[in-house]
């Protein structure tokens, strides 16, 4: 088991290395000032407190969607509705934040809870369609993301728009709703604790509880799970409801922590980023924060690079794609793995032979 883990870490590290190397080569060719660009990308976020703060700020939503996708992927459900759940959860939370008067502390918590429940509905729809009628959750969740986007915009633009604001934004949130900023000079907010709590709960749920075990078994071999008496339909549904809840709560947290009005006019993309985070973390909740931090670091580095040099931050997309492919590729380094297993077996054999004497 530990050998497997070591191999996973090695492979992930190598995949990241190769992806970064390819990106650096691209920058070398595309830029007139490649060395400034590369140094901005790699160590730029460490430059000032504010920039490092930006990394942490971005880590928070990525932890939420990373956890959401991890749990759904763990059940082998390719539900990509985390994007829509995150967005619509944020919409729901904004409406609570704008229109419902509640005392301090309770207000954001209620808003986040509502966001989570709405998120669960968004990922729950494809889950129900899958369990009940066998419709592919992949395609229906993709479609539903667009429905969530346009319905959400409809709600905000027609019912909650601030006509005096001069831009397409909602009315301001009530002051009781905003999450506390923790560290001055940054926007790091209380949501970081919520993300940490979610991570711990997700880990214990998935690896230490009976329900979590059912999710894992169902994800690995649904036939086996069925024969062992697990109600797989229920498990599949559950995993996606939980995933959607986390994503929706994430959208709510992001909005209440970072904004004072709802101002998104497009899907923010954190759902797709959640897929990257989940893959980097190998769907293990405890590794999700590390993966999220890594991705956020790359993103902020790329932003700084595009702000100070002639290289666009979109180069990061190429790094991400290569990372995903290599980390998931089962045959990448498989020869090395065989060798490792072979050597281990040989050693064990030698030992048992000695003991035999």
């Amino acid at each position, binding site marked *: 088991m530990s050998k497997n883990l070591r191999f996973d870490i090695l492979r992930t590290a190598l995949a990241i290395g190769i992806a970064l190397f390819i990106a650096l080569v691209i920058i070398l060719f*595309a830029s007139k000032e490649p060395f400034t660009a590369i140094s901005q990308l790699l160590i730029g976020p460490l430059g000032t407190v504010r920039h490092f703060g930006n990394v942490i700020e971005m880590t928070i939503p990525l932890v939420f969607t990373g956890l959401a996708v991890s749990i759904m992927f763990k059940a082998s459900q*390719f539900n*990509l509705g985390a994007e829509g759940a995150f967005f619509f959860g944020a919409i729901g939370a904004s409406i609570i934040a704008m229109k419902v008067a509640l005392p301090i502390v309770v207000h954001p918590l209620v808003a986040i809870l509502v966001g989570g429940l709405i998120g669960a509905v968004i990922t729950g729809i494809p889950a129900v*369609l899958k369990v009940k*009628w*066998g*419709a*592919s959750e*992949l*395609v*229906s969740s*993709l*479609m*539903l993301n*667009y*429905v969530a986007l*346009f*319905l959400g*915009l*409809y709600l905000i*633009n*027609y019912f909650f728009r601030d006509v005096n604001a001069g831009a397409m934004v909602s009315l301001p949130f009530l002051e009781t709703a905003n999450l506390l900023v923790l560290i001055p000079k940054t926007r790091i907010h209380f949501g970081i604790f919520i993300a940490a709590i979610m991570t711990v709960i997700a880990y214990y749920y998935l690896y230490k509880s009976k329900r979590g075990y059912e999710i894992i078994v169902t994800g690995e071999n649904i036939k086996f799970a069925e024969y062992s008496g697990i109600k797989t339909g229920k498990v599949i549904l559950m995993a996606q409801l939980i995933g959607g809840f986390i994503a929706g709560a994430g959208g709510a947290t992001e909005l209440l922590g970072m904004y004072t009005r709802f101002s998104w006019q497009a899907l923010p993309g954190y759902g*797709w980023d959640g*897929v*990257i985070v989940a*893959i980097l973390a190998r769907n293990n909740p405890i590794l999700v924060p590390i993966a999220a931090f890594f991705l956020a670091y790359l993103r902020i580095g790329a932003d700084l690079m595009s702000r100070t040099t002639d290289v*666009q931050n*979109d*180069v*990061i*997309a*190429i790094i*991400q*794609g*290569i990372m*995903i*492919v*290599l980390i*998931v*590729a*089962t*045959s*990448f380094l498989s020869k090395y793995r065989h060798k490792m297993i072979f050597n281990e077996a040989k050693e064990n054999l030698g030992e048992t032979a000695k003991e035999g004497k």
Partner: protein
Amino acid sequence: MNQLIDIIFSASFGYAVIRVTTPILFAALGSLIADRAGVINIALEGTMLVSALTGVAISAYTQSAWIGLLAAMIAGGLVGLLLAYFSLNLKTDIVLSGIAINLMASGGTVFVLYLIAKDRGISSSLPSLVLPKIQLPLIDQIPVIGAIFSNHNVLTYASLIAVLIVYIFLYKTPLGLKVRAVGENPDAADSVGISVIRVQYFALITSGVLAGMGGAYMSMGYVSWFAKNMTAGRGFIALAAEAMGGASPVGTFLTSLLFGFADALSNNLQSLSVPAEFIQTIPYIATIVGLVIYASRKTAQINKIKQQEK
């Protein structure tokens, strides 16, 4: 309501339906070929983007729309090849490979766009060309019918012909038989000496070329420029159209047309007083409903067969 009916029964609406169906139809046919060979091509969306940009860039550079189209098709084929390499050689899960390609395509096209056009949103600074429209002789003269079916982009007619070609290919050629055999049962196909991996490679590359034609249409026919993420989920809608069309060429054509109808409707209703955001959900909701109907019909069929067996 009357206004709505007036819109739907006008010749210009019929024309619009065909016009917006084209990219979906190309991508759906691409999805079809891959699906029949037992591989899901979820990278259609990214493939279309890559091809749309390639078409614009090459047509601007060579000042020939046809070379631009050819380059877009080659680019689509290469993306298909990449997907095949990831999933068949590196053994990366094909859905995740597709997601990876889509991510790379949506960011990569913007990156390249900035390099060649010095703009992160749109390619209007490039002198790119569009593919010609074609007046159909005779049909052009018929009232209403002519207005609906004539004077479309050459790729629109190509997409209709492609339905026929895909049909003939799948059901009347030895290679098409191999594709279907691999998709139905790869082990059985392998046992009679068909190289499964080769057939799947072929299917994914062809799928990429078809999606590439859809992409070329987007930037060299539907509009005359490339814009960031201009495909707006059409690659995903195509997946749904193909699934709903029962993985048959004719069925896929009809469902693509249905999505084209929803798309055209949402374009047209925006001129009425209905909120635009509301209307824009139509194609996606139609897709979900269609998908459920198709899937439930299929499970009902399977249950029926199971009962008969008992």
